[in-house]
């Protein structure tokens, strides 16, 4: 086979992308290996994140040198991540479905580009600006009018902010799909005497169901990895599972962000490695969700092609 230097140089540039990804994965695996050994299966089920006695002398526990009493459990953060993301999805689904339907069917053709542009723009607002708005507007609002304890920081605020960030993902995916529904399906539904709304809800929506689910799962993947906005409004809970929608929570991403510095107070370095293990857990969760989303969206495309 002839050596093609041009193609080879392009290929080597392209291979830098998988190389970077593999570097990150390998690093996480290798760096967290001692922590995985020390923490075992109790890592994901443990509620207490205990750095141990940082001012005492390190001891040897289960074969590893760690501060006395160190015990790393991340159930609180896994719960916070999953709860805030799922509640965000629950809020986002009706909002995005409604918005997409309204944009696809009820808005005049000339205004639609403007409004759909506005919906897309919600997705590009940086996370930290969402957090700023959350602190300035949302938290006082929830604290004064909604929360029984007067505390605005918590699961509800985090979920609302996340919902606003992921709604455009679902809405734009659904809008594109609705616009591509074949005219015959709409017209035959009208021909059977359905109202305009019924045409949309009963004839068009079932056709885009798989795309909708794909969009929802994609949005879930984005919500799980969100860091800044959630860190600014979630209330920083430690060692306690949330009991109500107003309870402060911590997500995995916001925990890594706020704890990396204090984990370094551990002279045995086990805390930093446990953070690597948490990062690995988050990476695996988002990877699984995004892979699922890809399967669903690509599967949907195949279905539509066959029909049209």
């Amino acid at each position, binding site marked *: 086979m002839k050596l093609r230097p041009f193609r080879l140089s392009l290929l080597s540039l392209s291979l830098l992308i998988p190389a970077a990804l593999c570097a990150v994965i390998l690093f996480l695996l290798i760096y967290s290996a001692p922590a995985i050994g020390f923490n075992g299966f109790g890592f994901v089920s443990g509620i207490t994140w205990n750095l141990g*006695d940082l*001012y005492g002398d390190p001891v040897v526990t289960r074969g590893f040198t760690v501060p006395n009493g160190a015990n790393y459990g991340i159930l609180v953060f896994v719960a916070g991540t999953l709860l805030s993301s799922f509640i965000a999805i629950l809020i986002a689904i009706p909002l995005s479905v409604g918005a997409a339907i309204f944009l696809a069917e009820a808005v005049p053709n000339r205004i639609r580009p403007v409004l759909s542009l506005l919906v897309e723009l919600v997705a590009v607002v940086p996370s930290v600006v969402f957090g700023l708005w959350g602190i300035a507007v949302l938290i006082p609002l929830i604290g004064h009018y909604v929360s029984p304890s007067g*505390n605005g920081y918590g699961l509800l605020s985090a979920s609302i902010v996340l919902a606003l960030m992921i709604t455009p993902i679902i809405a734009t995916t659904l809008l594109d799909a609705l616009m591509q529904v074949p005219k015959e399906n709409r017209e035959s539904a009208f021909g059977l005497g359905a109202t305009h709304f019924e045409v949309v809800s009963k004839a068009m929506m079932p056709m885009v169901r798989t795309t909708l689910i794909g969009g929802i799962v994609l949005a879930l993947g984005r919500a799980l990895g969100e860091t800044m906005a959630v860190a600014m409004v979630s209330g920083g809970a430690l*060692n306690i599972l949330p009991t109500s929608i107003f309870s*402060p929570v911590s997500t995995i991403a916001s925990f890594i962000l706020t704890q990396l510095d204090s984990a*370094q107070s551990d*002279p045995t370095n086990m805390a930093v490695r446990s953070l690597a293990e948490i990062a690995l857990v988050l990476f695996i969760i988002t990877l699984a969700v995004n892979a699922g989303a890809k399967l669903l969206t690509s599967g949907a495309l195949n279905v539509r092609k066959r029909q049209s």
Partner: protein
Amino acid sequence: MKLSNILSRSTALRSGVAALALAATVATTSTAHAATTLVETGSSLLYPLFNLWVPAFTAANPAVQITTTSTGSGAGIAQSIKNLVQIGASDAYMSNALVHKNPNMLNIPLAISAQAVNYNLPGLGDTHLKLSGPILAGIYSGKITMWNDHAIRAANPGVKLPAHKIIAIHRVDGSGDTFIFTQYLSSSTPSWASTVRYGTAVSWPAVADAIGANGNSGMVSAAAANPYSIAYIGVSYAAQAAKAGLGVAELKTADGQYVLPTPETVGAAAASVVTDTPPDERISMIFAHGSNAYPIANYEYAIINAQQPDAATAAALRTFLNWAVTDGNAPQYLNQVQFLPLPTAIQILSKTQIAKIK
């Protein structure tokens, strides 16, 4: 095709070179001044004082540029050890294990500070609540959940306390304030000392509705935003806490009195450890014995690596730190943050340590 002409490869190459040239020009004009840059990070308690010191020091020493950041004492210690920053500000001295691992590190007191316990109780007026270490330990471990708990009422006869849940606010970042606060709880309450102990980061017991805040400023905002909350806040934020309507508690000393953090009470706590302070200056004055000695007072440390990468940085550090413990200890700076100057004996010890920076 006009766009393609504009964006042909040669033009792209030219603009890339132009960008690099611009960057190089910026770089050379900046390095022409050849100032030594020092980066300080760490304690949010010491942060307001550093922000007062740096402009005054830079005015007299323009060749030294100092960046200040507030990340918490845990970060100050950790990053100074790794040489990510030159000055690690910390309310907490380094642990024995860390000193053992990093024998080149110096803990240099720059001033004496204290910490208040603030609360957001609407309708309390000007009365100061009396709180003790065991009461605070009970609140932060979830054993005392209501403001009108009998323990709090016993300490505050005649004060009308609301029947409302206490919202306990603690720091989530590695914090020197957490260190001195938990040292107070450990020294005064044996059950806390055997379970939670003290440190810049502790495993806070599970308390319903407890809020985690970042930095002293985060503590002030969280306490201000949540009625019926309690928080431990450094005295350098006393003005902001007062403006936010937070009350200051009178804390129970080792000798049984209830005192506010004032220059007299904090000075009494500092005086009790002056003669005991060792050459490496790592000592706690928490829960000190002595008449009216405020129970949460501490040295504010600069955690410095005695081995600096180059002579210019070492010289700049020595200049700044010597300035800080002498001119910087003047009332015009310390009064703004409610700190106290170092006693002469401690100043001498600090200067001895500063001289070790090479």
